[in-house]
């Protein structure tokens, strides 16, 4: 557990304690409500995690290198953005991987597109997001994020 997650544990436990002291009844009512809400999500989250496991098995992180290294930068950027939308590679794996590649002299545009869609667009988490916020919201948010990732990548290409 990194220091950030740990401090989050500390803060949330302290706040819950404070809430319990302030009003036991209100806190327990809130717990019941949250339990209902998160209980509904738990099954889906676990399902999604095991889907990620499958995706990572058949599209290993290393395979992204062949996409990023393509000759046609425009095409590579779009494919990289799609790959980033589908996979969910942990950031601490993605950064060194992309970094090593940029160091060798590959174009950064596809690399940025990949890094940005990796976190901002979630095809795998789509069903969960849809359930909480509705289809329209989820669809627009993910599509807009995809387009924005391409724009960010293009802008980075110009600026750097």
């Amino acid at each position, binding site marked *: 557990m990194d220091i950030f997650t740990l401090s989050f544990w500390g803060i*949330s436990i302290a706040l819950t304690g404070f*809430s319990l002291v302030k009003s036991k009844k*209100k*806190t327990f*009512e809130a717990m019941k409500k949250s339990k209902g809400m998160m209980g509904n999500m738990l099954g889906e989250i676990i399902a999604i995690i095991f889907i990620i496991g499958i995706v990572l098995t058949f599209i290993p992180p290393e395979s992204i290198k062949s996409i990023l290294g393509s000759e046609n930068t425009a095409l590579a950027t779009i494919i990289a953005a799609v790959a980033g939308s589908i996979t969910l590679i*942990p950031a601490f794996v993605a*950064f*060194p991987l992309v970094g090593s590649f940029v160091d060798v002299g590959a174009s950064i545009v596809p690399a940025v597109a990949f890094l*940005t869609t990796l976190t901002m667009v979630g095809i795998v988490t789509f069903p969960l997001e849809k359930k909480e916020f509705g289809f329209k919201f989820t669809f627009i948010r993910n599509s807009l994020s995809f387009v924005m990732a391409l724009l960010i990548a293009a802008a980075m290409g110009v600026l750097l």
Partner: protein
Amino acid sequence: MTVKTMIKKNKLLVMVAVIYLILFALMPDNATTAIKNSIYYLIEMFEVLPVIFLLTVVIEALVPKEWIIKHFGEKSGLLGNLLSLVLGSISAGPIYAAFPISKMLMTKGASVANIVIILSSWAVIKVPMLANEAKFLGVSFMSIRWVLTVVAILIMAWLMGKMISKREMVNDVIDHSKPKVVVNQDYCIGCGICVKMMPEVYELTDQKAYARLENVNSGNMTMIRNTVIKCPTQAITINASGGAE
């Protein structure tokens, strides 16, 4: 709960289990790798979800609705956007951890635009992640990408705030297996009687009442029936379908 409703409630989980069974039968090596890959994320989930649970409890119990509306609501303006950005950025955990918190803030009055900001910055901007990025790709790469991302998130939030209304979103997530309470927007005159009777279920937005369906359950059905009777224009209807659809 019968087996059938259990399966229906966990459709995705059952589907994934079936896929794994097939995978184990046909490609046992790949199946084992897939399980191993999943374990990292499972650990991450158990590190983060209890915290998220406690935080939603704290928001619900300690933070008054008026405060959320003032700081994250439709009229919170640029300051509300900044606050949402900070909230998303100091967070921990993957994007799905942002769903319960955002949902809770939304039901308590946060605007669509600010929900977009919280979700997006939660996913993309994280201090430990930024440090990692600077280490492997350089400080200038990281800072330029960060600035561009923040701008992109703000534009997205503004666009989505214009494109989607909150009422539309609430209607979009109706769980059809639960009793459904609908306020007919054409009949509602915004008198607020239902809101006064059951503030936990009804909400008044833009002079029209609408039902917060996540708070509708069999326990408060009797009281909801009373609101149906009291409504002067008979705009409220209950549709108690037990999964018949």
